């Protein structure tokens, strides 16, 4: 019997084969290429290949003034454009030690949170779509449309706003802004129940996501997985709590945490974050103080020579901007620590020995935005 077992068998490598998920594939939400090594339907290895939508934003920043950099950061993580802008503005204001008016802080916080909700809505609907529930896609987009309408009325565009400027805002909010936002909150509190009914509580969804792609707290910290994905593993990494900016130290909100660390936990953390965001908006929207929407800045901003780092909590996690200035009107070096790029790193770890369908679910639960990976 023993001899039979010890007979030479075909090695595992021979039975493995590779498939390219991407650059054109329905579940990668963009031009991410994953070279997946499969054995049967089990994923052995995932090698992400980035660079298909690399536009050299970091390099382009080196020839742009600080006002112009704003519109480039929109295009990194286009789903949280406002939050990216916020990071640049905070960097410049911090370096110049400019204190922005209260009104600006209020508006920035509200708009950031609206943007976070919109981003999570798009994440939710594409998550549902990746798991095969196409109807989720339309419900999510339908509700997101309300936020985009608010944005369009006040800032003039729906996706890439370039609304923040160093020292304040491009223009004041529209008079309808407060009313529309309150209407949206009322509307969305009703609709988010649909989200729970159609996906969160569904037995198929629970089986597809529970226990899939489990990431422990240590792994999250080691890989630097930030944002909702990191918090789902129990890592308290919310920049809004740890290094508060704008109004976040004055509003009352809960840092949503979970200790499961699986796909379902990442899902629930984001769903709960939408509720928390609505709570933040509700606290601020009626109390926006009167005042100027911007402080007077010099037409050409020159940062004092030195190195600066500014982080904000974008919808996907910690967005850090590292900037070296030599005193000129353009930075010498701009480096973006984008959350999607860091979160992508853990994809291989999480999806090993999972099924190919789980790879799609895990990828969706990490909420990757491909332009954010490539910059």
């Amino acid at each position: 019997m023993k001899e039979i077992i010890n007979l030479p068998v075909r090695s595992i490598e021979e039975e493995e084969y590779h498939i390219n998920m991407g650059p054109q594939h329905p579940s990668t939400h963009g031009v991410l290429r994953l070279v997946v090594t499969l054995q049967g339907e089990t994923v052995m290895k995932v090698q992400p290949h980035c660079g298909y939508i690399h536009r050299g934003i970091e390099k382009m920043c080196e020839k742009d003034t600080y006002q112009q950099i704003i519109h480039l950061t929109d295009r990194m993580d286009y789903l949280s454009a406002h939050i990216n802008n916020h990071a640049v503005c905070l960097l410049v204001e911090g370096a110049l030690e400019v204190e922005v008016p209260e009104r600006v802080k209020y508006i920035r916080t509200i708009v950031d949170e609206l943007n976070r909700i919109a981003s999570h809505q798009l994440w939710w609907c594409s998550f549902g779509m990746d798991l095969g529930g196409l109807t989720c896609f339309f419900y999510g987009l339908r509700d997101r449309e309300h936020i985009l309408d608010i944005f369009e009325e006040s800032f003039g565009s729906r996706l890439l706003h370039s609304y923040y400027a160093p020292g304040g805002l491009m223009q004041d909010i529209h008079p309808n802004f407060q009313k529309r936002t309150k209407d949206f909150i009322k509307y969305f509190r009703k609709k988010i129940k649909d989200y729970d009914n159609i996906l969160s509580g569904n037995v198929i969804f629970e089986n597809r996501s529970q226990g899939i792609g489990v990431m422990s707290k240590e792994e999250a910290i080691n890989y630097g997985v930030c944002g909702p994905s990191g918090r789902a593993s129990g890592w308290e990494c919310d920049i809004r709590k740890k290094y508060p900016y704008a109004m976040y130290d004055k509003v009352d909100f809960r840092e949503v945490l979970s200790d499961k660390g699986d796909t379902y936990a990442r899902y629930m953390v984001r769903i709960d974050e939408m509720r928390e965001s609505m709570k933040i908006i509700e606290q601020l929207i009626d109390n926006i103080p009167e005042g100027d929407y911007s402080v007077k800045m010099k037409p050409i901003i020159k940062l004092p020579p030195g190195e600066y780092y500014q982080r904000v909590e974008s919808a996907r996690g910690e967005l850090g901007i590292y900037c070296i200035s030599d005193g000129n009107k353009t930075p010498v070096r701009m480096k973006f620590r984008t959350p999607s790029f860091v979160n992508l790193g853990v994809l291989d770890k999480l999806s090993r020995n999972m099924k190919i369908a789980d790879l799609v679910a895990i990828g969706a639960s990490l909420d990757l935005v491909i332009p954010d990976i490539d910059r």
Partner: protein
Amino acid sequence: MAFNIYDFTSFTQSIDEALYEWLPPFWALIVEMTIIGLVFLIGYAIIGLFLVYAERKVCAFMQNRVGPNRVGPYGIFQTIADFIKLLMKELVYIKNSDKLLFNIAPFIVIIASFMAIAAIPFAKGLHAIDFDIGIMYVIAVTSLGVVGVLLAGWSSNNKYSLIGAMRSGAQIISYELSVGLSLLTIIVLAGTMQFSEVVELQSSGWFIFKGHIPACIAFVIFLIASTAETNRGPFDLAEAESELTAGFHTEYSGIKFAFFFLAEYMNMFIVASIAATVFLGGWMPFHIGSWEGFNYVMDFIPPLFWYFGKTAFIIWLMMWFKWTFPRLRIDQLLNLEWKYLLPINLVNILIMAFIVLMGWHF
């Protein structure tokens, strides 16, 4: 020719007799077969086109949008436009594929669904062939379609297609059991496999009501298993677009893709008509035991209307599943079959046999 909307027996018989009067028997049979074939072909195309339109409208309404509304009023000509587009598209031939198998795969799929439709009674006296083993024949014939799927996936020489074909094979082989067993539950109750007799037996009440809870359980299991067998709804793993782009028909284009597409909808129609016939009485109007007056009123609604109404309802149910649920994973799919549906089914048959033995059914 006597034409009666409630009973087609005399109508079809008179055609048959007229043909045999005019022609020698051999040619009469050939002409008759051609007529039946043409009728089915036309019906097939119409039903297929209608179902595609219905699916798009139903899913649109469930997704809170309007759906096709560009071509014709309410977009009713949308599928015709789509079909013309598919006809005119280039047929892509893939290098290093097995061309013969690649080309016959869609035909196998569509022929399997075509053979199944022959045994289904649309109204009294309106069926192509009335086997004494009708239900078994349908199960036998629908099981052939998977061969086309497997061939399509393998001969495309594409890894996605191959995975899709594998999934589809495992899925259909295992879910065929549940389909068969749930129909067997009703065969135990009915005591016959002939479709016409099955329908006639339901003149005093549909089997789903006559057979107590076991019949209801069998109906639910049949719905789930048949949805899986037609590669639809939450069980569309073979063509899971978010994982395998388009699964086994990734490499197909033009009219060959249209065959797969049409076959999917026709399989859905066939499965729905079997469910309607076996569980909901087929073309038999809604009758309640001995309520003469009520039954008399119900008889005024023509059987074709009843038949298509019930089938449409079940198709709508299947669309409802598809557009609500996320997709299962392959191991969960097999778990559902082997851990839940099959044991429940077996116990269900036992209970049904017991009920029939004790004469507790209506």
